[in-house]
């Protein structure tokens, strides 16, 4: 178990380093940063001055190791546009993004677990097929489009919920639903297939032979085993949601990390872009690691192995 953890952790650190390097390189190959910061009306002198000021005239490797050294200490430099420390910017935007991600995941679980279980219990019937259809529609729907439709229906026509901003909890409902839709298909399918497998197993027959109630058989004996892969995929899905919130936050004007990414990309604020990519990637890597650990905790066979 400890060796398993150490190995997984080492892999996670390597992936994080790779992402770090990629984040640095991608901003450099997207054009001459000094020129894009200086803007279209700048003279050659202006560009040179900016190059000097930001240290862009140094060799690439020097820039890289300088940035890397600071980044591992949590220092991502200063934003060109916001005139603030990048670390501060991200920290102040993070709560909105995390709240949104958790709301999205909660909605996704509340919808997909019962759907998956019902589909498994009624395998092969019309109920099963309706659930499969719902999952397919969810898969096929672009999130920005769904966001706009929800805004029009619930925000404008029915006026039940705000269409933008995060001033109250209500502001998270519509974007949460949109985000949940991206995770519902896979979570539902996984729950369904896990439950079908579990319900066909010998230990379910034993549970029935023990005269346990239907609820206990389904939830305690069936779902407990089907849940193992679902939990780890849910953790990975949360990572997707946090990273994928760029589109949703922009559509709903929620000032989270995703919105920050969009702003800084359009302003060529490359220290912020680099840092956001890095932070989201590290969160994602962390959640994947967590998923592996949860798997081991939930499955006694892995725990004692």
């Amino acid at each position: 178990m400890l060796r398993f953890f150490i190995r997984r952790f080492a892999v996670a650190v390597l992936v994080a380093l790779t992402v770090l390097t990629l984040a640095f390189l991608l901003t450099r190959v997207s054009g001459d940063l000094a020129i894009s910061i200086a803007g279209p009306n700048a003279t050659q002198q202006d560009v040179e001055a900016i190059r000097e000021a930001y240290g862009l005239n140094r060799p690439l490797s020097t820039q890289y190791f300088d940035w890397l050294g600071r980044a591992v200490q949590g220092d991502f430099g200063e934003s060109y546009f916001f005139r603030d420390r990048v670390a501060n910017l991200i920290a102040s935007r993070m709560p909105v993004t995390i709240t949104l991600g958790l709301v999205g995941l909660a909605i996704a679980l509340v919808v997909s677990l019962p759907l998956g279980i019902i589909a498994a219990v009624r395998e092969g019937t019309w109920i099963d097929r309706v659930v499969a259809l719902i999952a397919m529609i969810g898969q096929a729907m672009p999130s920005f489009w769904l966001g706009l439709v929800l805004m029009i229906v619930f925000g404008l026509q029915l006026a039940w919920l705000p269409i933008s901003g995060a001033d109250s909890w209500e502001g998270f409902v519509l974007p949460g639903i949109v985000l949940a839709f991206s995770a519902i298909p896979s979570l539902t399918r996984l729950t369904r297939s896990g439950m079908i497998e579990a319900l066909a197993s010998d230990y379910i027959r034993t549970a029935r032979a023990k005269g346990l109630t239907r609820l206990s058989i389904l939830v305690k004996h069936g779902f407990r085993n089907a849940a193992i892969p679902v939990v780890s995929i849910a953790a990975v899905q949360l990572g997707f949601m946090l990273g994928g919130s760029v589109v949703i936050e922009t559509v709903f004007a929620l000032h989270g990390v995703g919105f920050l990414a969009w702003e800084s990309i359009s302003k060529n604020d490359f220290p912020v872009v680099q840092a956001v990519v890095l932070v989201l990637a590290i969160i994602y890597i962390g959640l994947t690691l967590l998923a592996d650990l949860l798997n081991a905790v939930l499955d006694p066979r892995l725990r004692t192995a």
Partner: protein
Amino acid sequence: MTALLEVRDLRVTIGSTAAVRGTAITVNKGETHCLVGESGCGKSISALSVMGLLPRGSKRETTMLRFAGEEIGKYSERQMERLRGDRMAMIFQEPMTSLNPAYTVGSQMTEVLRRHRGTPRAQAVDRAAELLARVGITAPGLRLGQFPHQLSGGLRQRVMIAMALMCDPELLIADEPTTALDVTVQAQILRLLAGLQKDFGLGILLITHDLGVVARIADRVSVMYAGEVVESAPTASLFAAPEHPYTRGLLTCVPVPGKVKRDEPLGSIPGVVPRITPGFAGCGFRDRCSEAHAACSGTIPRQTVSDGHELLCTLAPGWGGKAAA
């Protein structure tokens, strides 16, 4: 002797297969009744229908399904739930997969008692430990905290047996409980079942295809073929004077020390068990039977050979001189 379980004219269809066709089984209190036959002859399905555990898509019909004097054939799923695990228990052929991998032995054992009797956890744990000791498991306290994957097959089957006994059932159905275990463990489990039966006054319905097992622990044997009980008799009389051609064939397939001669092939029954569809008439064994004749495709008479010895065959009892075995 009082009948604990009486089944008459049990019919089960699964999809388009007539899995059980008019089976009759009686298990008396404190008696071991063995159900023998080849794979696919309907033994397990018969047992599962008694428990109300048939797979989805199967249909059960019966004229009598009486347990401890009560007709349970029309019981609702809820009523059956209350009976299962409490007054009738079942153990299975697959000890490796029959326990839930996610819960400890203790949690799975106490669950039965808590469900049916509402016993407090501490008392249920005591009872579980006591039964684990009774089925020959050393250090029961340690085992209760372990997960199934930490136990061997033999231990798991003992846990299954102990778990089945938690509520002191009157009937124990054991579906090939020793098939998946190695020979020494098989013997231990059989000795254990026999001992438990004496101590607890259990009625046991034991499904097996192993005639050696039958000879050792059965009071009564029913031989099943293609969904029907073709012969049923007290163990001694079945082994001494088997009547049905299938029973005789089955007995010649078993090597008996002292009786088998070197260089002489063991008996075998050619062919396989046919798949029987609804509407099939006559004897299911006739295509493999050396004695088959025209009457075998008509209605087969149920004959009484001697007291408690019944035969489903067109041949007269005692045909062909004394039995082959």
